[in-house]
């Protein structure tokens, strides 16, 4: 008998399963990290392509200071209106039963409430049978984890119902809007394939009401 190794082995007991809110939080962070990596790689690829083309042509382009500035590789500026690819989705009034944690005034046309609880709300296209916590191709509304820093973070400054917010993500990328509603830091994530403009994302967020039943995930 070895009391010490037995005591150590007993530390490996059954651990509680995470709540769906925690799982959703892990997925959201993972998606955000994936988006950051894609943006970083796209920027590196763009720089490499530019240098490669320049080297192949063997030319040096002299830019007159009076000319229009060259476009930035870093995506849209804060003043750029949305994605600029021709919006095909309108926001329409939400007429269904109001969910538990978040009340909705508008939804993207062609999207329905797929799932909701006190932690997260998911809008998806009708017939989407994926798990509500799978966020691909969907709009997701939730609170920032209570373990995370309650800050807006980096991105383009926007105003949601008169309160400051930050919209992160460029054209063709998954975008995340963070804004405060009272004491709650609300996140609205719009998947990269959903053709809403930045202004529409803000408009969608302005129709979201955080109820007293809402809970922030842990982790």
């Amino acid at each position, binding site marked *: 008998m*070895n*009391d*010490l*190794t037995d*005591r*150590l*082995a*007993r*530390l*490996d*007991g*059954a*651990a*509680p*399963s*995470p709540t769906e809110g*925690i*799982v959703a*939080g*892990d*997925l959201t*962070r*993972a998606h955000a*990290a*994936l988006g950051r*990596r894609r943006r970083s790689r796209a920027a590196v690829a763009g720089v490499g392509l530019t240098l490669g083309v320049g080297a192949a042509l063997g030319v040096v382009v002299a830019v007159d200071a009076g000319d229009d500035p060259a476009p930035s590789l870093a995506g849209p500026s804060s003043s750029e209106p949305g994605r600029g690819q021709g919006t095909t989705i309108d926001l329409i009034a939400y007429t269904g039963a109001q969910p538990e944690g978040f009340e909705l005034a508008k939804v993207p046309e062609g999207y329905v409430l797929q799932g909701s609880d006190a932690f997260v709300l998911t809008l998806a296209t009708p017939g989407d049978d*994926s*798990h509500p*916590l*799978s*966020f*691909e*191709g969907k709009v997701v509304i939730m609170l920032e984890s*209570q*373990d995370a*820093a*309650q800050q807006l973070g980096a991105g383009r400054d926007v105003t949601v119902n008169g309160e400051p917010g930050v919209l992160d993500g460029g054209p063709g990328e998954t975008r995340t809007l963070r804004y405060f509603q009272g*004491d709650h830091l609300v996140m609205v994530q719009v998947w990269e394939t959903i053709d809403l403009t930045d202004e529409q994302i803000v408009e969608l967020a302005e129709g979201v009401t955080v109820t007293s039943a809402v809970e*922030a995930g*842990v*982790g």
Partner: protein
Amino acid sequence: MSRDRDREFADFVRTHRGGLMTTARLLTAGDGHLAEDLVQTALVRVYLAWSRARSGNPVAYARRTLVNCTADHHRRGFTRREHSAAAVPETAAPVHASDDLDAELVAALGSLPPRMRAAVVLRHVHDLSVDDTAHALGCSVGTVKSQTARGLDKLRAALAVPTLEGDHR
């Protein structure tokens, strides 16, 4: 493809997050908040490398990632993300109950150097083989044996556990 990854990853989190939290709490000597941070970071890394993780043993992959995150945390020192603030946040993160763990033993684990602690946790708490522990720590089998032996000696001393003469466990 991505939808499958999300579903598989979510299932993995549901099944194994609790175990990873236990490992993290032991690696951090009972610091529940740091353990939560490390698990979150490790899970993000696992997601980004999901195709690689799922092709083998995803739990082992996640555990190794967690150990690396812990080592990264210790290396970062004062360059951590946290910064002092004038006011405390209004919402406090919940304190994970630690009374389900052997508090005296967890405290004793905290007296070990991080790498030695990780070796003891993986080898004697999670019952990994010496080979698997070496793989998780990225070190040699001999290092695992020496680290765990010295770690157990230190724990016995810290806990004042009597040793039997000739007991080389």
